[in-house]
């Protein structure tokens, strides 16, 4: 790095160590990754391949998956399940939250009875009920994931509505003649960060449970793929699928959600 020497001369006591520290962090992070993969490789040499395949065969299987449309198709199916469940849970959760907000008489029913019940209900329980009712198919998967997500979205949207600053809404109303609060300029901007946070947690939880749902109750999707690989003791495929999932979820979080959240926070909260 050519930059490191220049500030080092200008302010030897301050800039140089901090720059070194910045570099050190990257070195340690990537070093950790390298050491981890090396340890994996080393341990894979010692145990049979059906227990732990090495990094190289897993990488080869991943490359094979990328050229072969099977994984893409299953990944799309899983994404479809997640998207459908997210939309449905937002509809249900949004309806519940808005009803509780707008109709005070129903608040006790929704906040103190329905939401805690849904929140305490086991995800595995929904899954097995869905299998009993709908059989092994995508309806089961979407039903189970939707019901697992619904308490999360209800609570998140409800918190957003509770945080709506009443004074600000009042002020907004006093500035215009219309009796309804100005929806586009006031309500939407105030709710967007909460809605987005709800979407983000929902997406994370959905990915965690959709594989379970597909494994036990689905006939397409990555979870289904995982199940067939498990039955055939195809450890390489299991590892390849897990690594793909980790990459996919970690990338959407770091590349898509986190920057977007930062932008939304800047724009709507302090803008």
């Amino acid at each position, binding site marked *: 790095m050519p930059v490191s020497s220049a500030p080092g001369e200008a302010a030897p006591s301050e800039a140089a160590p901090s720059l070194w520290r910045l570099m050190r962090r990257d070195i340690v992070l990537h070093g950790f990754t390298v050491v981890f993969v090396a340890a994996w490789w080393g341990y894979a040499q010692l145990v049979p391949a059906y*227990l732990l395949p090495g990094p190289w065969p897993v990488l080869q299987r991943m490359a094979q998956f990328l050229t072969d449309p099977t994984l893409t198709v299953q990944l799309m199916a899983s994404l479809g399940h997640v998207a459908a469940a997210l939309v449905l849970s937002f509809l249900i959760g949004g309806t519940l939250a808005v009803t509780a907000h707008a109709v005070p008489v129903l608040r006790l029913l929704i906040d*103190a009875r329905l939401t805690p019940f849904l929140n305490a209900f086991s995800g595995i329980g929904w899954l097995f009920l869905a299998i009993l009712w709908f059989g092994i198919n995508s309806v089961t998967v979407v039903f189970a994931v939707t019901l697992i997500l619904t308490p999360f979205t209800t609570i998140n949207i409800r918190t957003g509505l509770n945080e709506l600053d009443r004074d600000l809404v009042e002020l907004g109303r006093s500035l215009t003649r219309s009796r309804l609060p100005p929806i586009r300029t006031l309500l939407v901007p105030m709710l967007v960060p909460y809605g987005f946070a709800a979407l983000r947690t929902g997406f994370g939880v959905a990915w965690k449970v959709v594989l379970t749902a597909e494994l036990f109750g689905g006939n397409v999707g990555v979870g289904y793929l995982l199940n067939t690989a498990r039955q055939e003791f195809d450890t390489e495929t299991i590892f390849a699928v897990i690594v793909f999932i980790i990459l996919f979820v970690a990338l959407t979080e770091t590349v898509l959600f986190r920057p977007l959240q930062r932008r939304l926070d800047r724009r709507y909260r302090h803008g």
Partner: protein
Amino acid sequence: MVEPQAARPGAAGFTSHGLAEGAILLFVLLWWSTARGLPAFVLPGPWDVLRTFGTLLVEPSLLIHVGVSFARITAALVLTMALAIGLGLAARASDLFAAVLEARILLVLNSFPGVGWAILGVMWFGVSNGTVIFIQVAIVLPFCLIAVLEGFRQIDADLEEMGRSFTRRRWRSFTRVTLPLLAPFLISGLRVATGIAWKIALVAELFGAQTGLGYLLVQAQSNANAAMVFAICLVIVVIVFALDRLLLRPLAQAYSRNQGGSS
């Protein structure tokens, strides 16, 4: 979490209570009348479910499964909390480890599919109590870790410094100052973890275990015993509810009051 808003006294509170309990009653009635027209393996009636729920809690051969699941999840939660605190302390001691923990370990743990742990755990260690606990720890750990790290971030450094100025012994300062300051975050982490463990980490028992509620669930499903599936769901709801109301929420309230006095 949305805490239930206190019902206003008088007519309004009475109406909303009436509506809330009335809706539940209506729901049970609806369930009862629908179940009458359907075979029991599709939708058992409320009475069937309640009776199965009763035998689940009374019959020793069934109750043992509830106990086994309870013991496993409790062990997993204790291990997870200890692990999370240990990792959090290490991250506090070295900012390089903190970077590795947050940008590598937590990121991967957080994106790791729970079923993946279940499949790998059974493959590596076979079917045993240890395996089930391992899978549950792996699933719950990221949630605890996030809460603990957040707690360490929020702790008032000045207060800790003051604690250190009172005693030279690090352990004493840790138990008397750091731990109480951390307590609200630990408890909120434990609350989330308890929920996740009972609702999702039960998947660990679905892969070949011979005991536990997960095993009962698989059995019930393969025998098309819908009443049992319902009853197990009910048991889990009751346990999660009771743990939260009787243990975790009072704990959270006690410690947040403590915290409020000191700051």
